[in-house]
């Protein structure tokens, strides 16, 4: 009976097992599927807690008895329970026991449990030297996700050896594992330089993908690595990108007609890092960047993702006028795309492009202003930031007018941001005091309650310092309060002003040409 049961368990026919066993056992050892069904059937949180508590008790009993047969299933249940948000630390030893077992399915489950339930503070035995390549792969995965600095130091030489393993899957995982090691212990970067450069000559896309990522991260962590890769690998990388771009149809990696867009993007990112701040490297990559920018299809998301990365790269490497213009044109096209996602990333990139070429971005000002009024909150936020960066002395008046007009119709959550930005713009760029007062009053009438204290204090200071405008200011405020009296801040400013310059108001003193006479009865 016992061995039949075990055999059925190995075959995965857990449902049969449940039927064969007697009542008492079946109550304790429900299958994973049963537990999930029971949890799904719960209508309230209290019911769910009761079910989970019962299962945890059963698992704890099983763990206490050091029961081998159910370890695999117990761990699967624990992972599900952990995902729901319940504590599961009593199961951690089970992970380690499963990892130490000889069978592959048990090891697999153990490693999965390791990665989900434990974190880097645990010490774990790792079988990096196992003969079975899948097991080595598992160990690398676990190490790559959770190893600590000490473990990294201990196991670095072995991982470096594995970068040259016969199986490409292991090489690929070893590369990612190396990334974590290098981040935890940056001094170890040197031992990975040569093997990483060697990875760039591989044909397997998975290995290339991770190899390129390893090189990128090495450059971030160590300045010598950056120099090394710049000198030795830039040309090779350019050629690699050219090959990927021109490669024929490969069904395994094809996404919407483009071969392995992920690899395209990774390569572009590495070129970005290498070209930044170095004229020679940037020169080397000009042609391929131009080719990618002009030839990539932009009617599918994959193509656009590549174009986006390409534009980011062009913007950060050393100047080549033609490429920059190309890049900003692509962004302009993105801005008028109907897809919200594309417009969002375009705005994002334009914010970075402003520091590089303000003129070019100014040309798209009208479209950007439209985006400030968009229905999507994320787009509005980005567009507003961009507009704020675009303001200068020559365009401040029309831009402010547009923004204030929009303030009247914008949604409540957005008014705060918008008001703050408008006040900031007005303060920084205002050409004349009278214009400043005009704009501030409009803002106060429309959204006075969102205006911060420092802002209207500054307004009062400005008014008191502008003696020729006292009369103008007080009359304007008086008119404003009559229509927008619910704006508290406006009323405060008005009251102060009338208090100071009341006689000017009543007697129409100090009138400017633009004003019309007004009668005020007390």
């Amino acid at each position, binding site marked *: 009976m016992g061995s039949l049961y075990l055999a059925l368990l*190995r075959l995965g026919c857990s449902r049969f097992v449940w039927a064969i066993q007697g009542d008492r056992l079946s109550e304790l050892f429900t299958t*994973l*599927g049963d537990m999930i069904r029971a949890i799904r059937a719960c209508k309230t949180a209290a019911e769910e807690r009761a079910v989970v508590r019962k299962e945890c008790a059963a698992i704890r009993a099983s763990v206490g008895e050091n029961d081998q047969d159910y370890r695999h299933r117990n761990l*699967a249940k624990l*992972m*599900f329970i952990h*995902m*729901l*948000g*319940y*504590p599961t630390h009593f199961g951690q030893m089970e992970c380690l026991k499963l990892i130490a077992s000889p069978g*592959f*399915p048990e090891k*697999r489950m153990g490693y*999965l449990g390791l*990665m*989900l339930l434990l*974190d*880097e503070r645990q010490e774990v035995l790792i079988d990096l030297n196992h003969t079975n390549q*899948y097991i080595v*792969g598992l160990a690398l*995965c676990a190490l*790559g*996700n959770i190893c600590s600095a000490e473990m990294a130091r201990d196991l670095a030489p072995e991982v470096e050896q594995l970068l040259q393993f016969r199986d490409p*899957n292991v090489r*690929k*995982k070893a590369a*990612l*594992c190396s*990334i974590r090691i290098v981040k935890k212990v940056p001094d170890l970067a040197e031992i990975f330089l040569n093997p990483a450069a060697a990875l760039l000559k591989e044909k397997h*896309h*998975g290995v290339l*993908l991770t190899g390129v*990522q390893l090189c990128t991260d090495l450059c971030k962590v160590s300045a010598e690595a950056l120099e090394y890769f710049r000198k030795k690998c830039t040309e090779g990388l350019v050629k690699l990108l050219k090959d990927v771009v021109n490669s024929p149809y490969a069904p*395994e*990696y094809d*996404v919407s007609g483009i071969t*392995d867009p*992920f*690899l395209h*993007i990774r390569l572009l*990112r590495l070129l970005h890092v290498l070209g930044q701040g170095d004229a020679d490297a940037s020169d080397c990559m000009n042609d391929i960047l131009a080719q990618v920018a002009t030839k990539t299809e932009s009617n599918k*998301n*994959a193509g*656009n*993702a590549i174009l*986006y*990365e390409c534009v980011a790269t062009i913007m950060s490497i050393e100047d080549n006028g033609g490429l920059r213009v190309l890049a900003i044109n692509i962004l302009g096209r993105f801005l008028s795309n109907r*897809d*919200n*996602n*594309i*417009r*969002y*990333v375009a705005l994002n990139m334009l914010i970075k492009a402003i520091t590089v070429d303000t003129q070019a971005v100014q040309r798209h000002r009208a479209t950007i202003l439209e985006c400030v009024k968009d*229905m*999507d909150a*994320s*787009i509005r*936020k980005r567009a507003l930031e961009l507009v704020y960066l675009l303001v200068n002395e020559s365009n401040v008046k029309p831009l402010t007018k547009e923004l204030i007009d929009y303030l009247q119709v914008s949604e409540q959550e957005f008014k705060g941001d918008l008001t703050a930005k408008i006040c900031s713009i007005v303060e920084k760029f205002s050409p004349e005091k009278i214009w400043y007062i005009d704009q501030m009053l409009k803002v106060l009438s429309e959204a006075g309650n969102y205006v911060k204290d420092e802002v209207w204090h500054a307004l009062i200071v400005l008014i008191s310092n502008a003696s020729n405008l006292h009369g103008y200011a007080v009359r304007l405020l008086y008119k404003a309060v009559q229509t927008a009296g619910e704006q508290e801040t406006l009323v405060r400013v008005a009251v102060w002003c009338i208090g100071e310059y009341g006689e000017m108001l009543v007697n129409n003193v100090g009138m400017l040409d633009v004003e019309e006479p007004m009668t005020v009865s007390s």
Partner: protein
Amino acid sequence: MGIRFILMVNKQGQTRLAQYFEYLTLEERRALEGEIVRKCLARNDQQCSFVEHRNYKIVYRRYASLFFLVGVDNEENELAILEFIHLLVETMDRHFGNVCELDIMFHLEKAHFMLEEMVMNGCIVETSKSNILTPIQLLDKAS
């Protein structure tokens, strides 16, 4: 680096799969999941797929009753992450055949195995569906 976490959540806000690449305690995870899910579920189809949250971004996409949410650093290419989500769905589809929420629930370990083959330590490792599924198919044959 790159990806911080991957979540699959249904329309009622229940988490069906959670993979974190940075350490967070249980309470932090629950709080995080609650906040993000509320934000994403409240958005409609016309809005873009990117939401800013604290100091990073969430890229999300809805497939039938499941939301796929990926939390990424600010420097990450958002459009590429959208492609990655699609790749993940297609891979699961190929393995389970017309994958649905129940498949993921009842075969959680398989879904995790697939995800592990694709992403490691927040970094995309493999993008070819057959390379991803080979070890899993071998495992199925062995057990």
